[in-house]
């Protein structure tokens, strides 16, 4: 099917104003600054014409986890509530991250109730990347700049942005698409549309491959073969242990749990923590398995490539490159992995 961009936004607008299917909120990547072509972040949609939303570029600055797994959250049962909402413009790297979080936070051992609530109440609309940024490297970790599954709805830009090729990928998505048809024009796609989408996808993938060519030197980019201490001391030489990389990583979900009082109740608040901090694994009596910076630095790589693999049967890096952009010491994740394998 295809939908005109105008109509899609019109429908979003009506979802909010008429609470269609009880959807109350739409979150979209917003251009933070008209001069800066590289900065987007998820923002509540409103129809103000001065605000530019961008579903077509590359991933936002803020990782998808910030919409589902909040940086600070009261997780005691009494406080859990959330609106039914639509998040659109999720890129393939973030969608992959969301699926890793699903494995980590909703499983046979436990269900994180706050995460599950937000997940259940959200319709996930992914969209193909039509641009890349310097740090993008999904192609190195088995990803592609477009989603092929795990979305409710996927959008691919066609014909210079005038309209989207739109597909449903779940029952929830199909239902949504049918509702959409009742309100705006959603038409059958002309025969050649999918080939245009494919061409576009191929073009972006080629750009990515070109950008990351120098890292393609082994079969598996992410196999950390060298665990020599000396190498990791070198790798972490510039690291200040600020934890920006883990905070901005869409698959890092380590948290600390704090207690607050609310009358007579026991209230638990979870907030992001970082394995890069010295206090992270320190126990009473001051014992710590990773007292040195290079040990903690190495832990992040081992966690992403080895521990995640054992725990969730997938590696923990989705190639979004945010850690590269966020690092004040300009440490390039790709470089470190390259040196270590």
């Amino acid at each position, binding site marked *: 099917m295809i939908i005109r961009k105008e109509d899609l936004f019109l429908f979003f607008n009506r979802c909010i104003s008429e609470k269609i299917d009880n959807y109350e909120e739409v979150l979209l990547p917003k251009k933070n600054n008209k001069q800066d072509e590289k900065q987007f972040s998820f923002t509540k949609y409103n129809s103000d014409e001065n605000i530019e939303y961008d579903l077509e570029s590359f991933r936002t600055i803020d990782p998808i986890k910030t919409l589902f797994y909040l940086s600070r959250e009261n*997780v*005691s*049962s009494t406080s*859990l509530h959330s609106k039914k909402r639509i998040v659109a413009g999720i890129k393939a790297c973030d969608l992959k991250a969301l699926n890793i979080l699903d494995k*980590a*936070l909703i499983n046979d*051992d*436990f*269900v*994180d*109730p706050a995460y*599950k609530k937000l997940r259940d109440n959200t319709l996930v609309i992914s969209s193909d990347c039509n641009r890349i940024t310097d740090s993008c490297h999904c192609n190195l970790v088995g990803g592609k700049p477009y989603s092929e599954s795990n979305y409710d709805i996927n959008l691919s830009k066609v014909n210079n942005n005038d309209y989207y090729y739109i597909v449903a990928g779940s029952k929830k998505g199909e239902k949504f698409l049918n509702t959409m048809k009742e309100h705006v024009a959603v038409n059958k796609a002309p025969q050649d549309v999918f080939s245009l989408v494919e061409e576009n996808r191929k073009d972006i993938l080629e750009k990515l491959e070109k950008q990351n060519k120098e890292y393609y030197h082994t079969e598996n980019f992410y196999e950390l073969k060298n665990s020599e201490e000396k190498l990791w001391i070198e790798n972490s030489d510039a690291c200040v242990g600020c934890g920006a990389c883990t905070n901005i990583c869409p698959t890092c*979900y*380590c*948290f*600390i*749990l*704090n*207690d*607050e*009082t609310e009358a*007579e109740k*026991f209230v*638990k608040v*979870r907030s992001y*923590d970082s*394995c890069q901090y010295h206090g*992270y*694994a*320190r*126990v*009473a*009596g001051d*014992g*710590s*398995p*990773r*007292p040195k910076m290079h*040990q903690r630095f190495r832990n992040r790589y081992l*966690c992403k490539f*080895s*521990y995640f693999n*054992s*725990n969730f049967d997938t590696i923990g890096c989705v190639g979004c490159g945010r850690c590269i952009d966020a690092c004040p010491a300009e440490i390039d994740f790709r470089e470190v992995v390259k040196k270590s394998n």
Partner: protein
Amino acid sequence: MKNPFEVIPGKIFEIIQESPLIKTFRIRPEKPISFKTGQFVELSVPGIGEGPFTPSSSHFISDTMDITIMKTGFVTDHIHKIEVGDRVGIRGPYGHGYPIDKFKNKDIVIMGGGVGLAPTRSLFLTLLDEIDNYKSITFLAGAKTPNDFIYKDAICKWREVDKINFLRTVDSIPEDQKWNENTGVVTTLLEKVKIDPKDNPSVVCGPPIMMKFGTFALKDYGFTDENIYLSMEKKMYCGFGECRHCVIGKYYACKDGPVFTYEMIKNEEAIWE
């Protein structure tokens, strides 16, 4: 859907000062909490925080729970300020305890040091409740000084039970304290016992340094890596494998442990730290 962060409130009904830094808190939860010996719970002080502790009472008791706690950090400092009648919260139990089914008809060696006697007390009491199922229990207990020994009164009673050999040692004897038992680190007690290490289980619990040398000593004595059970106490924030703080390589200390065989974790990093 059960909220894993929800606590069961409880009241402290007795506090026993075990040593200058260690107290046993006896708790009556609002509803009974069943656990398997060696599992742990998260004990909350309202508004302050919580920490992982292994109960020190028998797992055949569920309407009350004893937890022995050393004052050694932020949360435990606050726990030590608790008075009889105060409210606390409990989450859990979590993880895997000691596989006592495998201990049946065996000669069991338990090595515990300092506050590490707490989880082993739970194991010991649980075994004691069904002592007919086991061939013998050898308890090797260590403390820094005689005054640091916990469960002093109980130990006297336990020593009277058949099939039990309870040996104690201290690292040193300050001038103002008396001691007529062994002196030396806890591993020196192994020289004083005669047990066939073949197919028999051994358990170690104590401060990291003791766990390390205790494990090596048991290995030297002839226990196999599969038969050395370690109670790994890492930073277990959530208790059920979500927060990742207690990760030991591919394992979660909270979910896959806290009781591991040495065989399972011997190749993982920094297990003794």
